[in-house]
């Protein structure tokens, strides 16, 4: 595929398909949500338009059929049933097949395409019979008409957000007119989100009286999204500051579905003569509680902040390309909470100057700054959609890899420069000093550069967790089990490579949970459980790792059955004593779970050893715990990135090796009585009552060591999964971040070595493969 336009199209469509899938899955749960149907329609239309542009006529036609269907749904001729959702999901597979064809050449899966189209015709025929209410109201048609004509008049163009922001406005009208219509969209029932602007200025002696504005703010946050701007203008110098006086006041925007009375009820306690506390409804649409709508960015010199976001999975085309309209006021792109903090800083300054200029005026102005009032509502509407603007560019992962390699080089060179300047120091104090100073200054930038590059590679793990929705949905439909999928922590970020390679194991684990964990509804009811089973995916960050947990509330695994099976398979002796944790580890033994027997008796499927291998390839670990009839939990622990790890450099016979710090528990110099020799089992080190097997690293690596006995050198205790191992080394040399280089790039995978890295002096050091040393 050499055509860059085509390439771009495929990438764009893939993003859209993701959005589409997400939308359809949501729609299945809320079939009457107008905004969802609109979203799906828009997606479908964009595909169609784009396909036309790149001359993929078959694809365009295919999309056209589904667009028609969605148009009917929008007009209320069809209600979205589960069948329709299946149909749409099927179409997504169809689209993917087209994408594969475009990308890799070959043939589109015609069977699939025909099948989905056939289903579509079938569905439309039936829907036509059952549709109770053909739409009549012309007004609705008309507004829709303008809506769609917007699209239709530009068939040659991909639908750009500039356009979609225009229909956005019209939709406000159209939604209104729909209220008289028979089609009831849930959006209306839900109670629409309304934005309120709050002005919170309290009595300066309030704190002394035992009251606290934080309490109020907390209560307000419970109602909805609250964005706050503190005004620090009257804050005195530190030396004049009386900690018991309140000098700050706030402007806030609250987006909530709760009625105004509830806000009133909260504020009422604070409304007295001395406090200025009031609120009013903002006229802008409530989608984004952005700060710009607070009107504080009204000064002409406000710079326009453009956000370049190199993020290839998240950016949806609308966000990526919509560009603020010129006639609106200057505004700042606020994307996330953390960024809005930065923006706050700007806000402070501006407020301060403003207040200094006209303190009187400020007091008089009852609520929020004037520009908001002056600007007509439509203007603010546009403005709000503009706030979402995030400019991003697509970058191929190769380019990032190269960039990262180069930065890695720079980091290594930095260490060498350091050594060099120390050498120069010995010859020429002055020059050495200057050079060293420079090198140290430079180090900060290099470090920053490295962090930034890593940051760029990070993508939210949610992108793959969300893919599971489809997996679960399809399985549930097929198996007649009822399964609910809960996702938590989707915004946890992980290196793109790790995220991608996590997908396979994750699908496997979720399938296992569905297949062998969750029982069917009858059984669940019999056992007094909720007939709908729950699988939850939780991602979180913990001390430089990302933890992904897959939990189900199914029937769990019977450790006794595993034990018996292990004995039968010859992995264990009947007399062996084994603790609970180790029993579950048996599930990862190759050959243990490939048979269906496990499925029959205890309920855990195939190929857990593959899952384990995949996770270990990502330098991660996997643990299973289970409670019979309560459920099973699988915990994946993954490093944030694969390219750079924290390493501990150890010396064995004057050769420096690197151990991933993640695997290191502790290190110590044992006293003679800690070392126990056991026949046929080698040596053990007793550490706080625990006996840990010891490996003489020099023997394993075939190196002549400096010390013959661990009591002269050191032992490093490493851990993999739950297994600990002492490594006898000569000494610990250093500790720090190392860039991992693959051994296979220029050589072969060497057993016992996970990779290589380059040390500060330019030498190569091998990274030990802890899992293989431990086993």
């Amino acid at each position, binding site marked *: 595929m050499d055509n860059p336009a085509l390439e771009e199209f495929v990438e764009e469509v893939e993003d859209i398909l993701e959005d589409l899938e997400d939308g359809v899955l949501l729609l299945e749960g809320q079939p009457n949500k107008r905004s969802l149907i609109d979203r799906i329609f828009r997606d479908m239309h964009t595909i169609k338009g784009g396909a036309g542009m790149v001359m993929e006529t078959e694809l365009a036609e295919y999309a056209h059929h589904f667009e028609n269907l969605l148009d009917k749904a929008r007009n209320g001729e069809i209600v979205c049933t589960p069948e329709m959702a299946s149909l749409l999901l099927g179409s997504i597979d169809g689209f993917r097949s087209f994408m594969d064809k475009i990308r890799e050449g070959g043939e589109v899966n015609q069977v699939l395409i025909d099948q989905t189209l056939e289903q579509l015709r079938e569905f439309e025929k039936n829907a036509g019979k059952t549709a109770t209410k053909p739409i009549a109201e012309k007004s609705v048609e008309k507004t829709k008409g303008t809506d769609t004509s917007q699209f239709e008049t530009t068939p040659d163009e991909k639908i750009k957000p500039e356009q979609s922001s225009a229909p956005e406005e019209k939709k406000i009208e159209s939604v209104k007119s729909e209220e008289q219509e028979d089609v009831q969209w849930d959006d209306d029932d839900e109670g629409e989100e309304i934005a309120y602007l709050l002005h919170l200025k309290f009595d300066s002696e309030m704190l002394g009286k035992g009251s606290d504005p934080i309490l109020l703010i907390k209560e307000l946050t419970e109602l909805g999204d609250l964005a706050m701007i503190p005004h620090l203008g009257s804050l005195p110098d530190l030396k004049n500051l009386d900690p018991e006086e309140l000098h700050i006041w706030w402007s806030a925007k609250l987006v909530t579905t709760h009625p105004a009375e509830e806000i009133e009820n909260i504020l009422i306690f604070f409304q007295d003569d001395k406090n200025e506390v009031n609120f009013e409804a903002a006229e802008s649409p409530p989608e984004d509680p952005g700060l710009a709508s607070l009107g504080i960015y009204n000064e002409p010199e406000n710079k326009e902040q453009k956000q370049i976001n190199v993020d290839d999975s998240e950016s949806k085309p609308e966000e990526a390309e919509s560009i603020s309209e010129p006639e609106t006021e200057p505004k700042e792109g606020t994307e996330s909470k953390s960024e809005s903090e930065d923006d706050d800083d700007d806000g402070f300054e501006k407020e301060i100057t403003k207040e200094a200029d006209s303190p009187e005026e400020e007091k008089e102005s009852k609520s929020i700054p004037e520009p908001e009032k002056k600007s007509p509502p439509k203007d603010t509407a546009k403005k709000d959609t503009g706030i979402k603007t995030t400019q991003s560019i697509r970058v191929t992962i190769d380019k990032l890899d190269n960039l990262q390699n180069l930065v890695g*080089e720079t980091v290594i060179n930095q260490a060498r420069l350091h050594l060099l300047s120390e050498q120069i120091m010995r010859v020429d104090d002055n020059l050495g000093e200057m050079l060293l100073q420079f090198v140290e200054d430079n180090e900060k930038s290099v470090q920053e550069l490295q962090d930034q590059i890593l940051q760029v590679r990070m993508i939210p793990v949610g992108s793959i967790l969300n893919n599971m929705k489809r997996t679960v949905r399809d399985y549930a439909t097929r198996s007649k089990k009822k399964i609910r999928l809960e996702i938590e922590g989707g915004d946890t970020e992980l290196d793109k490579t790790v995220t991608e390679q996590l997908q396979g194991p994750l699908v496997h684990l979720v399938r296992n949970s569905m297949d062998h964990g969750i029982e069917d509804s009858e059984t669940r009811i019999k056992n007094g459980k909720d007939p709908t089973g729950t699988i939850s995916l939780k991602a979180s960050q913990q001390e430089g790792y990302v933890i992904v947990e897959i939990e189900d509330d199914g029937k769990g695994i019977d450790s006794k059955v595993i034990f018996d099976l292990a004995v039968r398979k010859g992995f264990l002796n009947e007399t062996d004593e084994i603790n609970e944790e180790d029993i579950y580890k048996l599930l990862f033994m190759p050959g243990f779970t490939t048979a269906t027997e496990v499925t029959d008796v205890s309920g855990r499927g195939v190929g857990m050893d593959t899952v384990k291998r995949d996770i270990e390839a990502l330098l991660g670990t996997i643990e299973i715990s289970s409670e019979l009839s309560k459920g099973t939990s699988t915990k994946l622990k993954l490093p944030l990135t694969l390219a750079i790890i924290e390493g501990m450099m150890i010396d064995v016979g004057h050769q420096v090796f690197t151990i991933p710090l993640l695997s290191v528990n502790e290190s110590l110099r044992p006293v003679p009585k800690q070392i126990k020799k056991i026949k046929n089992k080698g040596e053990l080190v007793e550490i706080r009552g625990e006996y840990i097997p010891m490996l003489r690293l020099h023997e394993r690596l075939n190196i002549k060591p400096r010390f013959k006995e661990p009591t002269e050198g050191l032992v490093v205790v490493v851990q993999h999964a739950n297994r600990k191992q002492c490594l006898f080394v000569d000494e610990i040399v250093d500790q720090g971040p190392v860039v991992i280089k693959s*051994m296979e*790039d220029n050589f072969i995978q*060497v057993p016992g070595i996970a990779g*290589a890295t*380059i040390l500060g002096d330019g030498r190569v050091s091998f990274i030990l493969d802890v899992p293989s040393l431990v086993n």
Partner: protein
Amino acid sequence: MKSKAKDVMENNQNKKYLGSVNLSDEDLEDMSLEISYSEGTRLITFILGEEKYGLDILKVRELISFPEGLTRIPGMPDFIIGMFNLRGLVIPVMDLRKKFKMSSEERHEFSVIIIVEVDNKNIGLTVDSVSDVIFVKEENIQETTDLAVNVDTNFIKGVAKTKDEMVILLDIDFLLSKEEFDTLLEDKSE
């Protein structure tokens, strides 16, 4: 005719620096001008022990003097003498004397590592010294099976004769093939 021209162009790229230019009458008659080179290879030659060896210059990435620090790879046979850092690439070095089971020689100022690129992998080969770059015509290359040399004939493609000497052609692709590397791991387990 066009395709023939293309052929020549390709040849041209491979053997840019070749000396001989033959213009046949036929070609000149046929069209404007066509240049053809005689078939052959450019070789880099080096000394190893008593003999002169050659390898295809297109496989050579660069020549470097012996690096300061080589790190031994645990569990590898002795002819893999270690890995070193070549401007950020971690590259293994094979000692050809050891590989060919010759007596090892002290390193001296002419000791050179030839970095070759095979299958996108960069590997260093130690040689006693590099001598020349030569061009050998196809007809002067003799595919051999029985040669009285000190080297395992598996790694030899043939012998090239030049005016006054004989160069042994190394089969570098085989020497550094995946199959050969895989035997390194077997060696270890033995």
